[in-house]
């Protein structure tokens, strides 16, 4: 009973102190892109300290844009598969562009320095960009990590062709029997319609 009283007391203190923070996160952007929208380009800092924009990729046919981060177990579970996707599709014109959308103040693990360390450890073969100021992910409508947007480059701009998960089994790549991203890019390379355009997955909430 005494512990309960203490717990209640502590909870109230947290409730009051958390109030201001929660008010801010309530106003987070709703919406984001739907299939067929033109995705914004960006100029974000890569882990090699260069600035990366989609417009720099003159020979690309499109992009596999993945919002991901260091701290999230679901992102970590997919790291090897993200590297594999880049290796598989970069030469075919669909490079992976990874973006860390998190504010390092919310998740210190997701700081720019820690991004460099993680990319080196895992041998990332693709740019790993920092959404400094957290301005890009709300425009896309990413809510969690990992969250994939496949873009097709056209004369009108980069058109969103797929939004969602990498595949249907975060735990075990060998058990994944729906490879959403591969299927989408394969279809686009053949000039076909993406078979499954939107999927959902559990992920870690992005914190601005």
């Amino acid at each position, binding site marked *: 009973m005494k512990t309960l009283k203490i717990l209640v007391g502590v909870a109230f203190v947290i409730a009051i102190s958390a109030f201001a923070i929660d008010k801010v996160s309530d106003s987070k952007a709703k919406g984001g892109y739907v299939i067929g929208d033109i995705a914004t380009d960006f100029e974000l800092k890569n882990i090699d300290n260069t600035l990366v924009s989609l417009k720099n990729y003159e020979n690309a046919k499109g992009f596999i844009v993945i919002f991901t981060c260091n701290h999230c177990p679901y992102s970590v579970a997919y790291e090897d598969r993200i590297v594999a996707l880049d290796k598989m599709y970069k030469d075919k014109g669909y490079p992976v562009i990874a973006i860390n959308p998190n504010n390092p103040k919310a998740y210190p693990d997701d700081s720019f320095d820690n991004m460099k360390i993680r990319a080196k450890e895992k041998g990332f073969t693709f740019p790993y960009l920092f959404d400094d100021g957290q301005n890009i992910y709300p425009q896309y409508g990413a809510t969690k990590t990992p969250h994939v947007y496949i873009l097709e480059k056209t004369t009108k701009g980069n058109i969103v062709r797929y939004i969602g998960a990498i595949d*249907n089994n975060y735990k075990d790549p060998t058990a994944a029997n729906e490879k959403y991203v591969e299927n989408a890019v394969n279809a686009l390379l053949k000039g076909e319609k993406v078979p499954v355009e939107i999927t959902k997955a559990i992920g870690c909430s992005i914190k601005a």
Partner: protein
Amino acid sequence: MSRLILYAILIIFFTNCKGEQNIALDATDVYKSKGVEIPTYDFESFEPLLKIDDGKTRVINFWATWCKPCVAELPYFELINSRYPDNEVEVILVSLDLPKQVESKLIPFVKKQKIESRVLLLDDPDANSWIPKVNKNWSGSIPATIIYKGNNVNFYERSFTYSDLEKELKKML
């Protein structure tokens, strides 16, 4: 002999009763460690929990130990659980921790924080198939919460303060 038959009938009767209570939710596995038991469900065995119509209000929170905003709001769910009578409100904390972290992270967390609400693990990797069945508007980020009573269901993909959570709960009571 007749006594034996009576026992047999009693045993069948009681196992049936027990069976009926559990029929809605058959855990696929149970993790036991340090005196804490966490039953595990795939979505199919978990889904009936979203559709119980017994006049009780259920607050179902999807969370994980790795999710900071989830952990931050857990005391409010615990508070709801302790303040409202069990026959009116049931709080269920549905962990989405990775199964390999149940013994290393989830159980120590539940023990250390002295979590009293019902905690279970939802382990179903094909999330695209079940997320829309929880709620069609859910993108899959956590924390996410359902408050429901019978056919009256509200879904929230957001964090709560205690006062907000209680306000939403009271709409349903």
